[in-house]
C-alpha cells in the first residue's frame, strides 16, 4: 500500500477550514502532540484562521502505561498559551487506541478549561480502545496486525509503512 501524504494533508486542510467556519471557531490554538503530531500541525497551521503560534504538548507524564512501559527517556517541551475559554485544535499523526489523546486532554485541562477541543488526525487506524474519535481525518487506514505507520520529519515530512517486528 502506498500512502499519499500530500493528498491526506490537503484533505485535512480543506476539512479544517470548513469545520472552523461551520463551528464559528476563531483564533484557535493549534496544539501538536510530540513528535509526529507537531510536524503534522506545522503543515496545517496555515489552513486554520488563527493568529496564535503553534503550541506543543508532550504527554509523557500523563501516559497510562507508566507502570508497564516506564518513563520515556526523552521529554520534549510542552508549550501552551493560556488555554482558558479558547478553542483548541489537537493534532496527532496517528490515532490507534485513543490513549495518547486521552492523556493529551488530561494535560490540557491541567492548564485550564478550553472552550472546545477538536481532534485532527492524519491517519486513523480504527483500533479505538476508548470512546475517542477524530473530527478531522486525513485518511482511514486498515493495517495488518504487524504493520505500523512511520512518520519521518520535520523537513521533509514523509511517511511509510513498516513491519512492527
Amino acid at each position: 500500500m502506498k500512502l499519499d501524504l500530500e493528498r491526506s494533508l490537503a484533505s485535512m486542510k480543506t476539512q479544517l477550514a470548513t469545520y472552523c467556519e461551520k463551528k464559528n471557531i476563531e483564533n484557535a490554538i493549534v496544539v501538536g502532540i510530540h513528535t509526529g503530531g507537531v510536524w503534522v500541525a506545522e503543515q496545517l497551521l496555515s489552513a486554520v484562521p488563527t493568529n496564535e503560534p503553534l503550541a506543543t504538548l508532550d504527554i509523557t507524564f500523563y501516559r497510562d502505561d507508566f507502570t508497564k512501559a516506564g518513563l520515556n527517556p526523552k521529554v520534549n517541551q510542552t508549550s501552551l498559551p493560556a488555554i482558558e475559554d479558547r478553542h483548541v485544535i489537537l493534532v496527532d499523526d496517528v490515532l490507534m487506541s485513543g490513549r495518547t489523546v486521552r492523556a493529551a486532554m488530561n494535560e490540557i485541562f491541567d492548564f485550564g478549561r478550553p472552550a472546545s477541543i477538536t481532534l485532527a488526525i492524519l491517519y486513523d487506524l480504527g483500533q479505538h480502545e476508548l470512546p475517542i474519535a477524530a473530527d478531522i481525518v486525513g485518511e482511514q487506514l486498515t493495517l495488518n496486525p504487524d504493520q505500523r505507520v512511520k512518520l519521518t520529519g520535520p523537513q521533509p515530512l514523509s511517511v511509510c509503512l513498516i513491519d512492527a517486528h
Partner: protein
Amino acid sequence: MMRSEPRAVQLNEHGQLKHFLTLDGLDKTLLTEILDRAESFLSMGEQSVKKVPLLRGKTVVNLFFENSTRTRTTFELAAKRLSADVINLNIETSATSKGESLLDTLKNLEAMQSDMFIVRHSDSGSAHFIAEHCTPNIAIINAGDGRHAHPTQAMLDMLTIRRHKGGFEGLKVAIVGDILHSRVARSQLQALTTLGVSEVRLVGPKTLVPSFFAEMGATICHDLEAGLKDVDVIVMLRLQKERMKGALLPSESEFYRLYGLTVETLAWAKPDAIVMHPGPINRGVEISSEVADGKQSVILDQVTNGIAVRMAVMSMAMSGQLQSADSSAAGEEK
C-alpha cells in the same frame, strides 16, 4: 559487614536508577538525564494545576531520622506534584523512641504497602543499609546520610549551575567552609568531577579541609583569596555547629574573618560568579547578608530547582523499580 557496590544496589538490570543512594558510580549520561528530566519538570510551573499523574496511587514515606525542614518539605512537595500520597514520619517522636528497632519500623512500613522511602539519617550508609534490607520493590532515596552523601542536593546544585552557566566545561568551582563534616561537599565533588568542570577547589582551614580530599580530584586551598581567584561558582557551606565537637575552630568570628563571603572577598571571584548555599544560611558566620541577598546569589533558585530534581529522581527510581519487576514491559501505544 561487607556491603555490595553502590552501583550494583542502585541500578536495575537495564542500567536505570531503582534507588538513589549516592552519585558514586553514576556516569555522566545518567547525571545528564536527571538534569534534563528536572528541566522538563521545571517548565510545569506554568500549569495552573501544578501536578502530573506519574506517581498516582503510589505511597511515599518521608523517613527523617534527622531533622531538616527544607529537604523534607521539598521532597514532600515533589512527591505531591507527582500525585503520590505522602506520609511524613517524625521518627524522633515515634516508635523508635519506644525501643522499636530500625528494621522493625521498616517492616511495618512495608506492610503498609509503601512504594518509596525518602531517608535522612545521621549515620553514613544508612540509606544503603535500608536499600539492602527492604523488600526489593521499594525505591529508596537518600536525603542525606551522615557525612557520606546528599545526592539530590548535589544534583539540584548542578541544575542551578547548568541553568546559570549553560554547562560545566571550563568552569572553576570553589566549595568553601566545613568540608570535613559535609556530605553535600562530597556529593558535589563527585557530580562536578563526573560532569567535567575544569577545577574544583575546596577552601577552608586545615582542620575542616583535610588533605585526603586531594585524592578525590580536588585542589585544596587554605587561603580564601587563592581559593576564590577567578572562579565561576562559589558554594558556601554552613558551619555545622551541631557536628562541631572538639577544638576544630578558634571561634565563629575568627572563621568569618578568614573565610566569610563578603562583598570584599566576593570581588576575588569572576565578576559574573554565582553564589550558592545549600541552606540554612548563618548570616554573619559564613556569608554576609549583602552577599546572600545580592545580585550574584542564586540561593533561592536552588530551592526551586530542588523540587524539580527531586521529582526527576523519584519518577526515575519508581520507573526503574517497575521496569525491574517487569522486564517484559510493553512498548509505546498510540
